[in-house]
């Protein structure tokens, strides 16, 4: 078992080393096998781990039922600080393992086709493998530092892949922005870890959670810890206020957007909070802050997505918004709901990105949906898979997104009606912008140039096969956790229950909803979604001139939203410019004119004194002798005086 666990992250790492060190000398065919192959192997091993875990269920009675910790070696060990390189295998990490390796593998296969003609083919797969390695460390680690290794590592890979086409400085700027914003969050994470350590004298999950269980709810230290860790999650999972890097991150190749900026890395924050569930349940204040942040983000990002025209940017804002849903679920203690949505979101959002990639590939690089349209006929496979994904994200039954979103919404209703309302509005907006995107891309006539029109073609099988597999998953992903209402058995909830058991025991459970209420809620949201979808159809397919609203005619609010609320400009004005100015000021004025001048001044004083005093040396012997005798007299005089 231990060997399997070591191999799961090790294989992608070996893949990275092989592809990275071989660099240009490895033929593309080998890369095409090694790159996805390592991930496939990890996926198979993850399945074995999963089977192993389900078989073990019930046989263990340790502190952490259904979990094993495998220690490889001691990493940093000083006094009571003992950080070991160890892996924790429990339902939560296995679920993440499966998502990361499974979706990761499909995206790797897709990339074989998508990146076929890129000169940096090997480099691309090397980075992708490295990313999977770090992501696996993140989810498998049995203590916070190991998670932090993965946490920073995925940030690095994200940086490398966003700036993959490094000749373009705009892409590089986007990469820098992503890394730096993540680093702001990482500082919070780091400080959170320090506070954890000073509080619990350990950084292992098991030690911390078993101690935390006994603490009172609302403990100030816990609130501080959870808030600091949440800052980390805000950075990594692109929540307000650290979200602006994610839309820019779309500069990377599309498979990267699918894997890193939709399916896996950005959900790390959700995973981290789900992992630390007991700490968060005990800090209601933090939960409230998370809730407010998450709902604001969900609505805010959805509203921006409505007015965007870049196919990938829309999806990016959609990701931010969906992440907001996951955090909202976390904030009301619906950890299973969050993880469920994370999983289905990984399926349908990866699919959306890959399908969008297929569209971009077909057009030959263009990403503006105003120049698309009518692609339904030309790209049938892409069209159908895209449709399934869109239905899934819009929450139409029986697709996966319906179940996961519905679970969050009903939990939200139990918790607080306002939360439910806000999230429902978010769901309507989601349905609207997704179908706007869908209609503009695939319906009516093609609006691009003739050259592009000529270029249109369906993607090769190596790209469409992953699309089809993912669309199956996006369609039926809901079976993971079919609620009792539909005669399901909430399998995922049962599977993850041991992980969240302590938290659920602590948390005050609101009264469960009656079936009638649940049906009503479901019907309300569904009806709302259908109405918005219809509205979008009226506006973008039916009506002739609804397509390209003239920029000048827009109302002030719409202009504000379509400029993304000027947040980037605001950050530039409030943070970037002042720090650059500060840098200049400190260097030009404080450093050179003040500190260095004082230092040089000391030297100058010495020189000046020497220059002045030397005139005493007149060269006149009589004068010297006079001074000498004067000195002698003075000495005698002082001697008498004292």
């Amino acid at each position, binding site marked *: 078992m231990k060997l399997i666990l070591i191999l799961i992250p090790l294989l992608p790492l070996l893949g990275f080393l092989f592809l990275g060190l071989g660099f240009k000398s490895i033929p593309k065919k080998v890369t095409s096998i090694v790159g996805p192959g390592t991930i496939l192997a990890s996926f198979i091993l993850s399945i074995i781990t999963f089977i192993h875990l389900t078989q073990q269920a019930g046989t263990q009675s340790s502190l952490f039922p259904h979990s094993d910790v495998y220690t490889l070696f001691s990493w940093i060990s000083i006094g009571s600080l003992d950080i070991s390189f160890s892996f924790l295998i429990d339902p939560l990490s296995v679920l993440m393992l499966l998502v990361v390796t499974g979706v990761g593998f499909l995206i790797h296969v897709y990339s074989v086709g998508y990146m076929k003609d890129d000169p940096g083919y090997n480099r691309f797969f090397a980075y992708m493998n490295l990313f999977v390695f770090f992501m696996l460390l993140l989810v498998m680690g049995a203590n916070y530092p190991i998670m932090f290794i993965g946490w920073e590592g995925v940030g690095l890979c994200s940086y490398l892949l966003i700036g993959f086409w490094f000749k373009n400085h705009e892409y590089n700027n986007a990469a820098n922005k992503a890394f730096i914003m993540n680093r702001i969050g990482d500082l919070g994470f780091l400080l959170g870890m320090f506070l954890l350590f000073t509080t619990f004298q350990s950084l292992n999950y098991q030690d911390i959670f078993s101690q935390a269980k006994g603490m009172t709810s609302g403990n100030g230290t816990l609130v501080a810890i959870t808030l600091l860790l949440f800052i980390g999650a805000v950075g990594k999972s692109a929540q307000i206020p650290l979200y602006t890097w994610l839309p820019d991150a779309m500069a990377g190749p599309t498979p990267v957007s699918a894997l890193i900026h939709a399916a896996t890395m950005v959900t790390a924050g959700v995973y981290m909070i789900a992992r630390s569930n007991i700490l968060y349940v005990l800090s209601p204040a933090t939960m409230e802050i998370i809730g407010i942040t998450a709902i604001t983000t969900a609505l805010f990002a959805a509203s921006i997505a409505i007015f965007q025209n870049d196919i990938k940017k829309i999806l990016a804002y959609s990701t931010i918004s969906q992440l907001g849903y996951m955090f909202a679920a976390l904030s009301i203690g619906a950890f299973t709901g969050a993880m469920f949505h994370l999983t289905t979101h990984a399926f349908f959002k990866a699919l959306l990105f890959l399908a969008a990639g297929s569209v971009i590939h077909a057009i030959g690089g263009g990403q503006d949906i105003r120049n698309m349209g009518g692609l339904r006929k030309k790209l049938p496979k892409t069209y159908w898979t895209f449709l399934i994904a869109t239905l899934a994200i819009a929450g139409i039954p029986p697709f996966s997104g319906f179940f996961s979103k519905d679970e969050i919404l009903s939990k939200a209703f139990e918790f607080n009606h306002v939360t439910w309302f806000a999230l429902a509005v978010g769901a309507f907006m989601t349905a609207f912008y997704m179908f706007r995107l869908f209609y503009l891309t695939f319906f009516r006539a093609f609006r691009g140039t003739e050259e592009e029109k000529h270029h249109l073609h369906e993607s090769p099988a190596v790209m469409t096969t992953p699309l089809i597999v993912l669309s199956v998953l996006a369609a039926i992903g809901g079976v993971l956790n079919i609620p009792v209402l539909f005669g399901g058995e909430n399998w995922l909830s049962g599977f993850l229950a041991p992980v969240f058991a302590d938290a659920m025991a602590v948390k005050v459970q609101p009264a469960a909803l009656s079936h009638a209420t649940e049906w009503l809620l479901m019907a309300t949201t569904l009806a709302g979604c259908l109405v918005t979808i219809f509205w979008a159809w009226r506006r973008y397919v039916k009506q002739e001139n609804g397509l390209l609203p003239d920029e000048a005619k827009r109302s002030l609010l719409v202009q504000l939203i379509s400029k993304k609320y000027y947040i980037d400009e605001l950050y530039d004005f409030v943070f970037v410019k002042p720090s650059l100015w500060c840098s200049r000021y400190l260097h030009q004025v404080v450093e050179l004119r003040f500190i260095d001048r004082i230092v040089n001044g000391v030297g100058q004083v010495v020189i000046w004194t020497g220059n002045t005093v030397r005139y005493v040396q007149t*060269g006149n012997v*009589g004068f010297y*002798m006079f001074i000498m005798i004067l000195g002698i007299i003075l000495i005698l005089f002082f001697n008498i005086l004292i």
Partner: protein
Amino acid sequence: MSNLATIPIEYYLVFCSVLFCIGVFGVLIKRNALVILMSIELMINSINLLLAAFSAYTNDPAGQIFVFFIMVVAAAEVAIGLAIVVLIYRTTHSIDIDVLNKLKW
């Protein structure tokens, strides 16, 4: 010894101080290097006399031994001093210390 006792030690003290001060003033006022050297000699000898006087009054011969040492050293010093003065005169044709102020700053 008995003769000495008739002259009180204070007389020597005053006399030597006067001699020393004359030497000092000579050094300060005179501009001729030669005269300055002579004035220094005067100062040294006033000290010598004082040493001898104390030696006699306290019956301690060490003072007189010092006097001999000082005389030897003073002789050597005058020899060197005069040699320098002669050399300076040869090069500058002057032994006026107001003129000899090239070693400055």
